[in-house]
């Protein structure tokens, strides 16, 4: 029976394992790796939560989900109330339940982690959110009366979508402009199917649309309309156009055939479904041996994609060590299981090609870790004379992205920092009245949940602004 269970009993339950596709099978398909909790697993995991009076997990969550409350409702078997509670704090829980770095946010501070392992907060969030997706008819959305104020949002990534959801709930008339032909931002063009099925993104988008959010795809702000035009037509604008400008290595040979930015590689495979070629029209080059440069989530997604496209060998080339990898722990773990190789302490200096200008290898140097740099991480230092060539036929460059200047270049009075990111205060307000910004365009490439946190906080600030203007 749910409910009556003593703390001692709770402490005796071990963390439940996420059921997943076997590593050999999944390395050859694009279906989701994690299969999700069954009801039984979810109830057991929920019972592990101690229902702390001063829950540390909540403080670790960038959108302050009421974690003990929704987990408590799960353990009492009140799944619909749990869903209502979760959705009230988090506009896209089926997405964050899959892609948040829980191990550095809510789970790292969970008290159960002191003596054993933290509560599987992310797994439970996913469980409840998936229930909500499949039972949307049983959920009620509350909406404030119409205010008559019009808001434009630039970009339909997590920041834009979250803000849109909050603002319609407050009664504003919201239009989202998206440059691509499908809404979702990085969630549709970057993060692969095997980690975040596109169907989930489109269901979450549909939920927002039925709540009243209007989405216009194929509109590039800065080209189709300018920011000054939006300011004229709307009472307020939220810029959430992401950090979509790929950074290249700036080494010789980067324009050879077979060198991709991670953005291009992943966009071909995800947004354009190149893994289904020729049933989808967009191709992607299939390599026998693929080298991915970088160590973040983008690099992990690229290398695991290469493996699934049939590469005999797919490897990460990273200039620090395993301990410094910025990717989510689960992705690194999954990648290892799938047979991904890691070349640590290695930095490329040139892409090598043959006489037909196809990639044949990556010339690298070995590194060692030196003094910590400004970010506190050990700075990699080149070992002189250590040059060698890693043979490969595809190189994917996943060393980061920067602010895309397309929109900001058409609005010179919008204040930017030296990297081209929009300057915004705590509430998301920019140097222009009525213009707010959030997500990667302000922070530089960050995370889904931080972008959502910005969307949520800024929506509140915009609501205040709209009330007083």
């Amino acid at each position, binding site marked *: 029976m749910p409910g009556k269970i003593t703390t001692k009993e709770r402490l005796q339950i071990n963390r439940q394992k996420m059921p997943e596709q076997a590593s050999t099978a999944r390395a050859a398909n694009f279906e989701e790796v994690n299969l999700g909790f069954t009801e039984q697993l979810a109830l057991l995991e929920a019972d592990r939560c101690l229902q702390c009076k001063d829950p540390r997990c909540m403080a670790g969550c960038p959108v302050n989900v009421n974690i003990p409350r929704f987990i408590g409702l799960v353990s009492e078997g009140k799944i619909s109330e749990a869903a209502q509670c979760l959705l009230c704090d988090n506009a896209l829980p089926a997405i964050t339940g899959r892609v948040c770095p829980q191990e550095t946010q809510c789970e790292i501070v969970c008290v159960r982690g002191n003596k054993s392992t933290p509560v599987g907060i992310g797994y439970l969030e996913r469980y409840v959110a998936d229930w909500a997706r499949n039972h949307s008819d049983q959920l009620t959305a509350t909406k404030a009366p119409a205010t008559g104020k019009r808001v434009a949002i630039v970009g339909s990534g997590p920041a834009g979508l979250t803000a849109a959801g909050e603002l319609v709930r407050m009664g504003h008339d919201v239009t989202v402009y998206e440059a691509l032909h499908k809404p979702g931002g990085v969630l549709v063009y970057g993060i692969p199917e095997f980690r975040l099925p596109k169907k989930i993104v489109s269901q979450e988008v549909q939920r927002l649309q039925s709540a009243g959010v209007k989405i216009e795809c194929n509109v590039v702000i800065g080209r*189709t309309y300018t920011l000054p035009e939006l300011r004229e037509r709307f009472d307020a604008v939220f810029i959430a156009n992401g950090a979509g400008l790929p950074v290249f290595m700036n080494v010789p040979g980067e324009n050879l055939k077979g060198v991709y930015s991670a953005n291009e590689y992943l966009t071909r495979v995800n947004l354009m479904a190149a893994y289904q070629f020729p049933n989808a029209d*967009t*191709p992607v080059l299939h390599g026998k041996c693929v080298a991915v440069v970088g160590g973040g989530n983008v690099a992990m997604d690229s290398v695991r994609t290469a493996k699934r496209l049939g590469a005999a060998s797919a490897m990460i080339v990273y200039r620090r060590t395993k301990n410094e990898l910025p990717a989510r722990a689960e992705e690194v773990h999954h990648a290892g299981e799938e047979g991904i190789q890691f070349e640590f302490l290695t930095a490329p200096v040139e892409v090598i090609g043959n006489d037909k200008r196809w990639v044949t290898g990556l010339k690298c140097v070995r590194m060692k870790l030196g003094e910590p740099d400004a970010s506190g991480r050990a700075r990699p230092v080149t070992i002189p004379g250590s040059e060698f060539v890693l043979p490969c036929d595809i190189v994917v460059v996943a060393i980061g992205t920067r602010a895309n200047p397309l929109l900001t270049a058409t609005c010179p009075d919008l204040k930017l920092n030296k990297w081209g990111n929009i300057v915004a205060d705590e509430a998301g307000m920019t140097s222009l009245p009525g213009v707010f910004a959030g997500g990667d365009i302000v922070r530089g490439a960050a995370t889904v949940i931080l972008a959502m946190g910005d969307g949520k906080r800024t929506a509140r600030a915009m609501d205040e602004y709209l009330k007083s203007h």
Partner: protein
Amino acid sequence: MHTIVSKQCLSPNVTRLDVQAPRIAQIRQPGQFVIVHHSEGAERIPLTIADADPAAGTIALVIQSVGKSTRDLVALEPGQAIADIVGPLGHPTEMIESGRALCIGGGVGTAVVHPIAQGLHKRGVKVTSIIGGRSKEWVIFEAELRRLGEVIVCTDDGSYGRKGFVTDAAKDVLAGGGIGIVYAVGPVPMMRAVVNLTKPLGVRTIVSLNPVMIDGTGMCGGCRVSVGGETRFACVDGPEFDGHGVNFDELMDRLSAYREYEQKSLACAEENCRLKQTLPS
């Protein structure tokens, strides 16, 4: 959805579609392009806006059918629609405000030269156009360009106009002097030949580059080209560049990257087509 309002065959493999896209029709400028996505599962392909009618809310797309994607587009009939068109993308053409300009168009590139000549003509610049094709039936946009100035037509086989390449005619026009700027749009070898001609003469030459693109917003970097020794993204930094700095060899090479895949895509489409015809419905 963007409905096709008219369709016209311009040459054996070049089709003109006039498509509804009111906002783009209103604000597009010479040199700009759109990215077209036929339907779910299709490629996104860049196409120059060859003309626009702001009153009717339509833009003209001139499409050379070479691969599966372009074939699918030209198979559309008036009344049918293209799912997605985004634009106008890229920078408008750099124009001169007076004097004489030479516009050179090869094959389907002539459709790109047309809005440039329009823009120049509007500013009062005297335009000479040189356009070419394999033979008479491959020459396009002649009438439209004649409205804007002198036109010299060249065909490879001499079946119409001057016999020979557009570069031969260009050499003569340039020898006459007085040309302030040259615009060259067409197959890469043609643009390279024009640039080789104008470089020693020091005549500024603008070319329009057509690398593979996906998003058209500077997000993927797939459209990168080398100009003046630097990597530029054609979709946002171009598509037009100073021809004297362009690395045409690299462009040609990168354009060939997917050749094998393109053939496979076409072969598959033909196979499907045959199956559909032979299977009882």
